[in-house]
């Protein structure tokens, strides 16, 4: 079984993630397992090279090209937030 080691930025800190399997990209769960203090239920968001931010489910592999991630508690936004791409 192939073995992969990748480095990513998670919450602005460099993290090394090793995985075995068919894909060189880890799942969100595998990323979370490498983060000290990560809590069950935390959500992983990937920042794509385009600037888009994408939620990654636990069993999904992280999107190709994404190197920068935020691991955060489950949340919702009560007020509208500034989204640069869609501001009038």
């Amino acid at each position, binding site marked *: 079984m192939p073995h992969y080691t990748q480095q990513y930025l998670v919450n602005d800190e460099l993290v090394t993630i090793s995985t075995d399997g068919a894909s060189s990209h880890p799942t969100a769960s595998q990323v979370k397992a490498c983060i000290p203090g990560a809590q069950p239920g935390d959500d992983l968001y990937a*920042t794509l090279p385009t600037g888009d931010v994408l939620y990654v489910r636990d069993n999904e592999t992280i999107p190709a090209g994404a190197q920068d991630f*935020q691991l955060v*508690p489950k*949340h919702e*936004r009560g*007020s509208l937030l500034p*989204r*640069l791409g*869609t*501001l009038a």
Partner: protein
Amino acid sequence: MSNLDTRRRINRLNQERIYIYRKYPTVETAIDKTDGQWIHITHFPIAHGWDRPEVELLIDIPAPGYPDIPPQWFWTDRNITTLDGRNISQFFDHFFHNNEKYASLGWGHFCVHIRGSGSWRPASNVIGGHSLLSYLNLISLVFRDQKRKSAA
């Protein structure tokens, strides 16, 4: 609110400031030393796309309750604009009961709620669970998320 509860909260905030400085060595912080009801953070770095590389933050600390109860909102520079000069003041919550107090000081208000019971898991050891660092990660995400639709 008991003095003991207040002292515990202030002690916790002071512990958390140490971890905030470790992760963000350029920020400066101040806390409410009387009641432990807020933390003020300057020079907080934000993602590319704004007219400034860093913002000021004022986070309301639930009192009593923190750290068992998570923060629910934060304040930031009301006059922040996008790199191409678009104003975002229309996105701030204008109906928050404390708006007058802080809005007059130039703050804009964002709600970012932790969703559902059990999603916020603090630990007595600051780095063993959720903390203000977790909430700062959320704020960082807010400033990164540039492409979501602005509809409610």
